[in-house]
């Protein structure tokens, strides 16, 4: 394959006009991403008509929208790390280790780690996309319902790492998350499940409502309890950036997470939330020897961040090569391509080298711009935490309400969010972790739909789940991820006993 498109693209992306557009896009994206539920998809949808009507050429419009996309991917981390309010679905796992870091005064470091690992993930993924876009697009085609189901089994297998000293609570959390996905219209049969004739429940529980309720509202309730007890103290914010050794420490977790994130991103319909969840649990399984994950471990922060950005980049692969969007955001970008009468497909790299090359080149440049722009800004963002609680916590509540209301224009959705917040608070008091609930929710719908679609295709034959090489590889990986750590632990114990 010739890489002429990349050289032509560099010429396009490095034009001063396009550099400026990329910079504006990164900045706007960061701001948009900070606001819960606005997220990249709405940001792009807002800017698309402006880009089109202002007469921007197609490559400049795509550069703008792509810059907003990865700017928002980074921006979503800010509220997640500082306030425990995930800006979008992919930022949920970021809060697991990012928020504890902020609580112990390392907000600036957490934001910087997030920026650096996002940079690692974004850059490695763009390089992979440059060289592997067309071959990888065939992987996306090979994934049928059976393979998707086995992929979800693999994802659940990685959850074994989330099991703490009370495994029953982790498993219960997963099942509760899975149950929430069954609310609403069943796409396969058209039946309404657990809606109790409430129109607001017809579309099911929206992810953002669940996440804001579980994380943000329950957190406010916990803070209120501490306030009453007199134990809620203003946070300290140390100005430290990560050290070189910490930057080196996050390199391999970021690389591993990038590989996972990029491959999952390439698969249409899975997205950044699955990528960040799987990469976090995999990293926890591999690296959490001291039980520091979930308590502010930089590797636990870096892995989902790198995976998230890699998945965002990977989602462009099926969009550009097959015309199949890998995520909601790339679906809007596909609309942008069609607005300019451009038909995506394998020939796009040959027919529109300037456009594709410009887009890919802008990702290289955008990742660098984002890092340069955001590293100095982390101090400013971190200082938000120095606000007194009587300003900060009403702000968190307002953002939570607005995040849900602006997304769904429904008072009932906001009330459901508060209801979920109460349940989240009670579960947290009972010692449940919120992450397994979210992971069950993220993986559940994809799992059920593909399980049933596969059985519909096979006429009820369960053999379909073992019928392709890809499925078998995924089964082996799923079994290995459960069995190998147990075997290694036993071998270590046996050696220790022998010594």
């Amino acid at each position, binding site marked *: 394959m010739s890489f002429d498109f990349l050289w032509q693209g560099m010429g396009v992306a490095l034009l001063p006009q396009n550099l400026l557009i990329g910079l504006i896009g990164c900045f706007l994206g960061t701001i948009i991403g900070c*606001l819960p539920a*606005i997220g990249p998809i709405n940001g792009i949808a*807002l800017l698309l008509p402006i880009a089109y009507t202002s007469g921007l050429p197609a490559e400049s419009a795509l550069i703008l929208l792509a810059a907003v996309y990865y700017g928002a991917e980074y921006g979503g981390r800010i509220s997640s790390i500082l306030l425990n309010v995930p800006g979008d679905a992919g930022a949920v796992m970021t809060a697991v280790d990012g928020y504890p870091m902020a609580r112990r005064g390392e907000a600036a470091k957490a934001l910087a780690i997030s920026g650096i690992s996002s940079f690692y993930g974004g850059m490695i993924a763009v390089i992979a996309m440059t060289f592997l876009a067309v071959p990888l697009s065939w992987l996306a085609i090979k994934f049928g319902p059976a393979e998707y189901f086995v992929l979800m089994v693999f994802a659940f297998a990685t959850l074994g790492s989330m099991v703490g000293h*009370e495994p*029953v*609570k982790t*498993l*219960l959390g997963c*099942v*509760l998350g*899975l*149950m929430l996905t*069954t609310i609403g219209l*069943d796409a*396969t*049969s*058209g*039946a*309404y*499940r*657990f809606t109790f004739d409430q129109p607001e429940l017809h579309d099911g529980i929206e992810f953002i409502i669940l996440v804001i309720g579980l994380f943000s509202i329950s957190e406010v*309730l916990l*803070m*209120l*309890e501490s*306030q*009453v*007890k007199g134990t*809620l103290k203003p946070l300290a914010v140390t100005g430290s950036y990560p050290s070189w050794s910490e930057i080196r420490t996050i390199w391999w977790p970021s690389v591993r997470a990038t590989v996972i994130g990029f491959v999952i991103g390439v698969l249409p319909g899975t997205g950044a939330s699955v990528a960040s969840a799987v990469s976090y649990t995999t990293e926890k399984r591999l690296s959490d020897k001291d039980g520091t994950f979930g308590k502010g471990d930089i590797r636990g922060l870096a892995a989902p961040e790198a995976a998230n950005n890699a998945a965002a980049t990977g989602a462009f692969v099926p969009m550009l090569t097959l015309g199949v969007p890998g995520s909601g955001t790339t679906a809007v970008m596909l609309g942008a391509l069609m607005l300019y009468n451009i038909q995506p497909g394998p020939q796009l790299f040959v027919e529109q080298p300037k456009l594709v090359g410009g887009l890919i080149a802008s990702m290289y440049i955008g990742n660098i711009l984002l890092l340069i722009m955001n590293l100095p800004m982390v101090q400013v963002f971190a200082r938000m935490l120095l606000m*007194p*609680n*009587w*300003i900060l*916590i*009403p*702000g968190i*509540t*307002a*953002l939570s*309400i*607005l995040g849900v*209301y*602006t997304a769904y224009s429904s*008072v009932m959705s*906001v*009330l459901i969010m*508060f209801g979920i917040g*109460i349940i989240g608070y009670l579960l*947290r*008091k*009972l*010692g449940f972790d919120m992450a397994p609930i979210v992971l069950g929710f993220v993986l559940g719908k994809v799992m*059920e739909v593909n*399980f*049933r*679609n596969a*059985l*519909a295709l096979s*006429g*009820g034959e369960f053999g379909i789940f073992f019928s392709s090489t890809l499925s078998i590889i995924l089964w082996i990986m799923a079994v290995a991820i459960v069995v190998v750590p147990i075997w290694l632990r036993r071998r270590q114990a046996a050696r220790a006993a022998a010594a």
Partner: protein
Amino acid sequence: MSDLAQRQRRIGRIAAGVLMAFAVFYGFFGLTIEYSFSSDPIGPRGFPAGLAVVLFALGAWYWLVPGSTEEWPEQEGRIAALTFLVVSAACVLAMDWIGFVPAMLVLMTAIARLFGANWTLALVNGAGQALLWWLMFGPLLGGTLPKGPLGF
């Protein structure tokens, strides 16, 4: 066994009981889902029924091994949490009638009071945040926020 451990055990068992009861409720409604056709052999009832069984079994496990819970709030804490929830729900419900800014003014002021601000600071914070969020999510980002008789 200490009083605290016994209390935690009791609370854990109550939670396990609630979860098992929920599993029965969920399973019952899952098995009565109405549908006219399904292209797959499992149908819309299969997955919920399976989950109900798993939840019940895990609930039973939890009942046997309730584990530990965190300390629960005293009466003052419960009243504060209830105040927060009632005021939040009332303001959210009132948003469509009285408008976004007045509803947020009340809510932001109330939360600021709960977090230790005096009345003056709480009111200034309430008014400032209500206007800030309205400006940002309304005119600036083009979102649709509830309009009361005053138009905001």
